[in-house]
């Protein structure tokens, strides 16, 4: 239930009022459902959501044609907060479900969201195939290096040495890197962004949504409740480096070098235009009818 904040008791700072007014006019509220998110205060997911919705608004995606599919986890809650057709599916299976939605009804805009556990753990086997089919959907992986919903166990991207619920003596395993994987699978659009900078994340989201093909965006975010040590706003702010302007996004090798470096690059790593799954379907139907 959205209350008009300007009518709340007391006076508000004019700046805040201006901000509120700007948001109301930006159109992103059209994409907010009436449900209030259940994420912790300070969670990076708010930033990601804002960036996404701004991108949707810019592109004037119709609500009725918006499908948001998620897995299980904190990120999985997103469909409830979006004003569209949401499908909160099962753990690790958001990509298959989302592909089914898009293949069945290509006119829909399909957004898939999930966390690092959902996407790289239980769902890890589905990722390469969704990528290689190049189904035209946008997959945003909310990477916070932890299993937050179940209260703090290690995830596939938890840094080595971190103490977690499943590793009281420190995580011995090497974490995966979603961007490296995405490039290895040759995602036709591969980008990374940072939840703490929604204004810089939003153009990435927009490009991802516009791209014809499988757009893979990794959104790095802290979990303020279960990791106060490694992946934090402070540390991320320090290590965050934009991809140089002279990077050739069509050069997969260069993209991979950026991904493999010690620096935490953000931006668009790689992009190529190739036939989408539905392009190929048209082709096959054509051949079949001959």
């Amino acid at each position, binding site marked *: 239930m959205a209350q008009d904040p300007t009518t709340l008791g007391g006076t508000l700072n004019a700046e805040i009022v201006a901000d509120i007014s700007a948001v109301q006019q930006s159109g992103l509220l059209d994409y907010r459902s009436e449900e209030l998110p259940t994420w912790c205060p300070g969670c990076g997911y708010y930033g990601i959501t804002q960036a996404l919705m701004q991108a949707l608004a810019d592109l004037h995606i119709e609500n009725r044609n*918006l499908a948001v599919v998620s897995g299980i986890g904190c990120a999985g809650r997103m469909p*409830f907060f979006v004003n569209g057709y*949401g*499908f909160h*599916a099962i753990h690790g*299976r958001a990509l298959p479900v989302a592909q089914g939605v898009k293949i069945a009804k290509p006119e829909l805009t399909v957004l898939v969201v999930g966390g690092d556990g959902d996407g790289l753990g239980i769902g890890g086997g589905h990722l390469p195939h969704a990528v290689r089919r190049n189904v035209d959907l946008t997959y945003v992986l909310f990477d916070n290096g932890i299993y937050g919903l179940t209260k703090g166990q290690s995830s596939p991207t938890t840094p080595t040495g971190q103490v977690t619920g499943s590793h009281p003596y420190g995580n011995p395993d090497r974490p995966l890197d979603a961007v490296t994987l995405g490039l290895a699978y040759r995602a036709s659009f591969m980008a990374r962004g940072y939840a703490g900078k929604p204004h810089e994340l939003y153009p990435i989201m927009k490009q991802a949504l516009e791209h014809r093909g499988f757009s893979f965006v990794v959104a790095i975010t802290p979990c303020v409740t279960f990791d106060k040590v490694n992946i934090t706003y402070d540390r991320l702010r320090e290590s965050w480096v934009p991809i140089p302007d002279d990077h050739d996004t069509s050069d997969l090798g260069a993209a991979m070098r950026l991904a493999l470096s010690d620096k935490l690059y953000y931006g668009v790593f790689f992009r190529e235009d190739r036939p989408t799954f539905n392009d190929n379907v048209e082709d096959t139907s054509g*051949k079949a009818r001959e």
Partner: protein
Amino acid sequence: MAVSETTGPASSDVVIKICGAAGDGSIAAGQILNLAAAGMGYHVMNFDSFPAEIRGFGKSVAHSRISVERVLTPGTMGDCLVALDDPHSITELASLRGNGIVIYDSRPADYHEEDQAVAGWLQPGMIGYGVPLRDLSAEATKGAKSRNIVALGVVSWLFGLDADGFRWAIGKRFGGKSETVRETNIAAFNLGWECAARELDKADPIDFGNVALARVENVSIVSGNEAAAQGCIDAGLRLYAGYPITPATKIMEVLGRKLPATGGVVVQTEDEISAIGHVVGGGFAGKRCATATSGPGLCLMVECINLGVMAEVPAVIIDCQRGGPSTGLPTKTEQSDLNIAIFGASGESPRPVLAPTNVEECYALVLKAFEVAEAFQTPVIVLFDFFLSSRMEDVVWSREAADRFGVYEDFLATPTPEPYARYAITETGVSPRAYPGMPELVHPITGLEHDEHGLPNYSGPVHTRMQRKRQRKLETLLARWPAPEVVGPEGDLEVGIVSWGSTVGAAKNAIKRLSESGMRAGGIFPRLMWPLAGDALREFSARCGMLLVAETNSSGQYAALVEQATHRDVLRVCEAAAMPLPTAAIEAAALKVHG
């Protein structure tokens, strides 16, 4: 003591086996035989067996039963064995009747070594017809490759199966090939026929009289899997997602060829979980989607099916049951997935389960499954088995005929926007459904328990009423679905036989035989396995002195449900012996207890 040479099978119902090594063309000859017989108006059932090895060096036996009446079971023993080779045919003699017929090559390239000639193994009572298959094949096609077609010429003459019917079938079978190929094959057939007419002394009584019953031009000989694929196409399937697994793979392959022309899509996914994920996603999007698998794949799919039940999303899952558990017996038939189909899930997860009993029903029930899935907004599982999937029967497609299982389109209600509740509680349990693309009706769906608006809600009252709603949908379906088929005389019965799926053929045969021997016998055969037709079962049970349940699994999965519903002990004729349950087993069980 069978010492006579002249007793033989009735000529209105004959089992012909064509046996050879891989490459001898036994299967192809069987297909032509089936097509010829069906084209002449006979009913046909075909259940071939293939070499186990991928390389295919083993024995290939085409097994066809041709009858004036609709064939219910393929028959265990053959009446005629066409021996295209000797080593394999010798082993096949064990499945030939004591007074059966063997057609063999009287002029092989060289003398067989001792005991390597099938004609040397004929038992007293069997009739052997030797024809120079190789020589005639060489005359027609300059090589030994058409011995199988030459043999068909012999079969045609011997059994009075109209030669023109065969020529038509040969033409059709080689329709895609060149004129020369068709001509040489027809020449081979003619040579076989003429040689038989000239040289053979007919000593057996099989005679179809060279009469076509009623020409059937548009007949198809198809397997259960092919029928399933056609059912999907006729239902307007938009997306098929599947993973290769024996014996379901053929459904995907047939759809892969035929679906694209209709605008549909076939996706081979990376695993079964992805497959069912695709199907549920597509169902959510408002389209008809399906997958097919077998036991091990169904195990993987259970979680996503459960999601479909909870979120009330339509989906069609065909399970081609095979020997289990685990990897089990991939190329053997069994009916042991009933439990997982009905109950496989965490929590209370009611979903409809259908089971066809023959190939035409494989088409009709798959077609109907889409309607039921959509109307009741639920995954529907259709249980086939290896036997049904791979056996072939003559079928004439008819969408209208599928409506004998009810019509459900009236359950599709247009939702109204304000205020829209996806899971509104209704009397039938079915809520008007909106799906992506429809304006002003956006809502989330979830595998969490939810309220009428689809928002997660864990409270007791909400959970209770939602569970009841989901259950009520099935009760509504049960009330609408036609009562199970009941056969036999009215009134009291000495023996009642309950059966389902592919075992029904044998059960019907058994009832016929028991009745002929004077017993009051009847049967009840549901196609809707779940929800359980409790009232119908109880009503039938009340008439029966003895109630017997026949199915091919060892614990009696349906028997347990029947016992629960009828509150009585049933006699289980339940065998999981890697083969279809024979008529004789059911008959013997009934006689033993009653007899």
